[in-house]
């Protein structure tokens, strides 16, 4: 990566981030663009495009946008899991650096961008906060074609959208239980004994995911 400085002495990424923020601000004030701003902030497929742009073109502008969206959320997520603010900040930076380095491992037909980044953040927490190793399942073999299956990526995106809506539509109490499980407030025994967890909602996408796996294994 060749970090080019522009006239103001900022890197492309920093300049882009500044430009992004000011555009964002303008959007809020111009009624016709409010919709666009909202879309920018949602879990939209654009984040997959940003990661692929990093992989293919080392696109710093794309990285800056990804950073703007995810880095504060990673920090917030880690702090809610009991990580001190300074450690959470360092971890968020390291997670985003890993997103850059491992961009070639991202496959939008297997996981959405936010899911993939979540797994990196989770592993960072285990590594840094708990100082443990995390055994990972072996990877499925990659197909002979390096290109992502567009149809699968689209299907996954729609499922993710549905899951996201289903979770936000849950009663407060159930959503809260899920959060407690993921923020590390519930042990596996407590999860097993907890009858209020909306497992049906979570499992709604399993059948499709399984079909996709079988399709990939052929």
């Amino acid at each position, binding site marked *: *990566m*060749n*970090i080019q400085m522009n006239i103001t002495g900022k890197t492309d*990424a920093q300049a882009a981030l500044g430009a992004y923020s000011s555009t964002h601000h303008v959007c809020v004030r111009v009624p016709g663009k409010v919709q666009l701003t909202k879309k920018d902030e949602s*879990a939209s497929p654009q984040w997959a495009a940003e990661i692929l742009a990093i*992989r293919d073109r*080392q696109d*710093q502008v794309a990285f800056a946008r990804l*950073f703007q969206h*995810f*880095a*504060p*959320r*990673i*920090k*917030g997520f880690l*702090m809610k899991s009991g990580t001190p603010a300074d450690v959470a*900040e360092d971890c968020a*930076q390291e997670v*985003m*650096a890993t997103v*850059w*380095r491992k961009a*070639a491992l991202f496959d939008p037909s297997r*996981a*959405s*961008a*936010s*899911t993939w*980044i*979540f*797994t990196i953040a*989770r*592993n960072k*927490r285990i590594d840094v906060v708990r100082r443990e190793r*995390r*055994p*990972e*399942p*072996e990877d*499925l073999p*990659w197909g002979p074609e*390096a290109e992502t299956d567009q149809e699968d990526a689209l299907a996954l995106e729609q499922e993710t959208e549905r*899951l*996201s809506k289903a*979770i936000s539509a849950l009663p407060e109490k159930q959503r809260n239980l899920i*959060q407690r*499980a*993921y923020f*590390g407030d519930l*042990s*596996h025994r407590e*999860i097993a004994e907890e009858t209020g*967890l909306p*497992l049906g909602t*979570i*499992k709604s996408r*399993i059948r499709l995911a*399984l079909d996709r*796996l079988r399709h990939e294994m052929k």
Partner: protein
Amino acid sequence: MSQINHHLTDALLMAYSAGTLPEAFSLVVATHISMCDECRARAGSFDSVGGQLLDSASGEALSDDALAATLRLIGGAAPEPRAPSTRRAPSTFPLPLQDYVGGDVDAIRWKRLGGGVRQMILPSSSDASVRLLYIPGGAAVPDHGHRGTELTLVLQGAFRDETDRFGVGDIEVATEDLEHKPVAEPGVACICLAATDAPLKFNSMIPRMLQPLFRI
């Protein structure tokens, strides 16, 4: 691969996805997922719940320097190319397990437990323990109950207990409600990966006395 009939529970998958399982349990979960498409798909669903929570989390402001600091961490390096994928021969141990054993089945350093039963304790964090167990065909594991949770994943052969038959890839999730006496099926020895978050409770005196000695 043989048909897998006994799968991971939702609670284990959710805790694995959340990153809160003891390392010993994570090893059993990762090894089972490596053998079982269905649980791989289920694990993916639990990961996407995590992704959704991350995406909808309220952000915490970063230091002004955060992006520049991250770019310094990257240090101008290009993203790493994807390593060519290799396929493990189905007759060998799944890779997460090979990582802990230091190789495949021939790398195991067995210790005798008596009655032909052998074990190898694998390294893990101290909140739970994990071991490989070798039970000769037709032999029994001393009958025991549990104080905590015990996960037993079959890697070779099969065993039966009061609840069912467990073949290659099957996982038994036992809690203190279950007192069982697993017996390996006649024929090929049964090799299992077993993890527990509390010492096992043996029902007869002799194994109880040996327990500190063998760390089971």
